[in-house]
């Protein structure tokens, strides 16, 4: 079992778990964000907002279980590929939204905090897609003890790495994008 594959799977799984829970809890926010993006037909917004959360949760559980070795190899790979496609799809979608709404501040609806769509949202989705692809393509299998690296040490490194990747990726847009209010002279006086 490659530590990189497990950490990548857990990172994407954790991020999808958080965003999936957020989308399931507040489908109206997702629907409002889709409307603000004004990219997909309005008739699809409602069911997309309802479906997105559960899909993310299923993929998240699959990735987390695959990393633990609970889920079988082929099934984990197929679901990991699904997660990669979903994240890369998000990246492409957000890129188009960013171009169409240039200069405007529209909500991301990504389920990871109330951040607007920025270049960093696209980067985050792309990074998650790349991590999911890494989890699919890198060798997996049962945990085996290596010289100088017992199974528990590998698991700890993978868990810590996965958590760091998840936090670093999920928080990237909020950390990088300075709110417009901080850079615009709204109401600047003498």
């Amino acid at each position, binding site marked *: 079992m490659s530590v990189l594959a497990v950490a990548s799977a857990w990172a994407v799984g954790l991020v999808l778990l958080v965003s999936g829970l957020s989308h399931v809890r507040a489908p109206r926010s997702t629907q409002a964000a889709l409307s603000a993006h004004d990219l997909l037909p309005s008739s699809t917004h409602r069911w997309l907002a309802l479906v997105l959360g559960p899909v993310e949760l299923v993929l998240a559980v699959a990735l987390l279980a695959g990393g633990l070795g609970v889920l079988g190899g082929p099934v984990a790979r197929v679901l990991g590929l699904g997660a990669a496609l979903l994240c890369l799809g998000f990246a492409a979608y957000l890129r188009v939204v960013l171009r169409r709404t240039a200069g405007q501040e529209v909500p991301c609806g990504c389920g990871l905090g109330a951040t607007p769509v920025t*270049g960093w949202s696209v980067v985050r989705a792309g990074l998650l897609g790349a991590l999911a692809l890494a989890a699919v393509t890198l060798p997996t299998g049962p945990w085996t003890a290596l010289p100088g690296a017992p199974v528990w040490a590998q698991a700890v490194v*993978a868990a810590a790495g996965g958590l760091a990747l998840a936090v670093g990726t999920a928080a*990237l847009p909020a950390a*990088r994008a*300075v709110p417009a209010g901080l*850079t615009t*002279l709204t109401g600047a*006086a003498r």
Partner: protein
Amino acid sequence: MSFTASALVLAFVAIALLALGLAGLLRQVSLLTQQLDGGVAAPHPGAGARTTRELVGFRVPGDLAAELVDPAAPHTLLAFVSPGCSSCSLTLRALAADPQVADGSVALTLVSAGSCEPGLRDAEGSLRLRCLPQGRTVMDRLAVPATPYLALLDASGTLRAALLPEEDTDLGGWLRQVGTTLQQAAARPSTREDRPS
């Protein structure tokens, strides 16, 4: 890939990601600190600014940008002037004679405290010239301390430089110097807001 190599790659990627996030957060803290320095009770960014120079790096509000920024030019030079001010006339004539202003690579927007006619006459020869009459409100909002006063905006409406010209100020040299700085910064994000694209 061995366990050690995998762990190293993982650590490097995680550190890079977290460092990017931390750098962004530090910038936000820095901007917030600047606002607090301008007055804790300041309701808006720049509200505590006493001069335009303190506002360099900020973006002018959208309504002002639409009036002031020439979208066809990479940079717009705002010249705050008053009718009947002899040093304003001298400044505008010097600017109109500058090659960058004459060929339109720098647009010239006059913000006049009164009517536009005297300023437009003095700035004749500028390829991209416009004028905003009765611009006292704009001057107040941008904390212009006196006329003549120059402020350079980039295409996004971000204030890049400001200058209170004196009789012996080499305006051409100032424009070239600012232009060079902006070209060097072109590789970096265009405002204090850091965006990949």
